[in-house]
């Protein structure tokens, strides 16, 4: 009861923190999509480059977010941005690359060779093939990558509260430092619910973006 009262009393703050959280993750993953998808498409041209790019991206994801912050802060301090939005957004951008690049690459790479040959055989140029066949087929898989990135980074953004980026993590950090279980639990539950709800909404969007003729194929992907 006490928890609910606390949440209701602080509804304004909770709402603004949630919006902040979503906005930061949204902007960063949005930017990451703008870079990741073209990179994913570009690396289908050369398998060795693809392997190198995916390897680097997977190493980046392996680095724990708090360690990444710890490394970025001293570097960004040089331009006076050590604490705040910037390191958080950069971290989200970096972490989003792997799922988005990997899914784009895999989806385009795995387009049935017969389709590619048919497209070539009827006289599509490389760009037409990409636009009319390969990208439409890859969209659901790319969207799945975006979804993974968003869910992953909602968690990263929660930790970013410790470097002053705001968001729902602030409740958790204050809860811990002030030994206030109300803030702690409200923050933890809110960020968990946010992740779950966003995951399901993006799944719904992903299904809607799947061309009707491919529903069966998309389920196995």
């Amino acid at each position, binding site marked *: 009861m006490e928890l609910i009262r606390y949440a209701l009393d602080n509804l304004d703050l909770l709402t603004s923190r949630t919006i902040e959280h979503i906005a930061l993750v949204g902007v960063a993953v949005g930017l990451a999509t703008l870079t990741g998808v073209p990179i994913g498409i570009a690396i289908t041209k050369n398998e060795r480059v693809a392997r190198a790019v995916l390897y680097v991206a997977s190493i980046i994801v392996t680095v724990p977010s708090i360690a990444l912050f710890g490394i970025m802060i001293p570097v960004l301090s040089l331009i006076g941005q050590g604490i705040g939005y910037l390191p958080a957004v950069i971290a989200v951008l970096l972490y989003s690359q792997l799922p988005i690049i990997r899914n784009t690459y895999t989806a385009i790479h795995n387009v049935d060779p*017969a389709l590619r040959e048919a497209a070539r*055989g*009827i*006289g599509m140029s490389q760009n037409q093939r990409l636009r009319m*066949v390969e990208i439409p087929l890859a969209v659901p898989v790319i969207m799945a990558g975006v979804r993974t990135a968003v869910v992953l980074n909602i968690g990263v953004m929660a930790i970013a509260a410790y470097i002053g980026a705001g968001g729902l993590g602030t409740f958790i950090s204050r809860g811990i430092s002030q030994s206030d279980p109300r803030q702690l639990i409200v923050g933890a539950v809110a960020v968990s619910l946010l992740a779950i709800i966003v995951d399901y909404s993006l799944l719904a969007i992903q299904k809607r973006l799947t061309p009707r*003729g*491919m529903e*069966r194929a998309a389920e196995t992907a």
Partner: protein
Amino acid sequence: MIRLDNLTKVFDTPKGPVTAADHITMEVPSGEICILLGPSGCGKTTTLKMVNRIIRPTSGKVFINGEDTTGLDTQDLRRSIGYVIQQIGLFPNMTIEENITVVPRLLGWDKARYQERARELMRMIALEPDAFLKRYPSELSGGQQQRIGVARALAADPPVMLMDEPFGAIDPINRAVIQDEFLKMQQALKKTIMFVSHDIDEAIKMGDRVAVFREGRLVQYSTPDDLLAAPRNAFVESFLGEDRALKRLNLVKVREVVSDEIGTVRPGDTLEQALARIDDFGYQNSILMVNDKHQPVGLITRALARTTKGYCRDHFQNVPATVTLEDDLRKVASLMFAQDTTWLPCVDDEGRVCGQITQRAMTHHLGSRFRPTQEDDTPIPDAATRE
């Protein structure tokens, strides 16, 4: 017309260069289907795919309707050639209509024109336009999908088509149906077609000409009947199979073997007269009885005519079977075996008797052109492999 001039493809593999197609020179006349036939790895698919540059030739030229295609833009070239592949390759993200109209759209046709074209093509391949155009490939059976694949290739009405084992992935029953449909369409469309197959029966059925490949070389290029009657060497002969003489039965029509001389009797004739005619014509067992319209109505057997008195109309047996001038000899042979007879009456479109076909005439016809190969396992001389 498609003409290949010394078309050659050498692949660089880790094990060194491999010649997949070696100086292929051949010509497919306008309006004909040419089957490229051979075992896997013989170079038939490589040769086909060099025509629309899915595989880039190492050397040699391709001429289409007399024009050297070497200087043409690859995409323009491909859009002017219909292309059908075994895996069909319908785009799963597009509706049937979008799939069929993809080439016209690439060519920049206006909407009304390509939509009308889609409906026309659907009627041509005997699929109801309203029921299918808005559906997706995954909702169709394999046979239906390949019909759409053919329609897509025909969409911009290209004079030339390339087909890479187009019906290979379809079950045998549907394959026969789709082959027949395609031949019927071809009679009207008169496309110039190159068609890869590894199935000798399909080659004989579909091809106006057959080009047999082996290890990157064109071994023999002739009509199906010539191929079966006179295979150039032991390889071709073994590829055609030991029953190649029987396969020719498919290719020969009754019209080519029929003898228009046939003795008949009327229902009003006596059995005595019938016996005399049987002897006159030198028939072994029986003579055909026809009505006033000269349609076959019965058989009078020699044994009966010799032992019985009376009129033919009271003592005839049923006619076991008749054949038409357009039937092939395979059907005739099958009927003869089933009915235990050595001859069958032949009727015209109105059902009037116009001749007869005998087992002897058939074997004579086939045998007169049948030649066993000259050389046995001797190496193939160069002159024989290069046309």
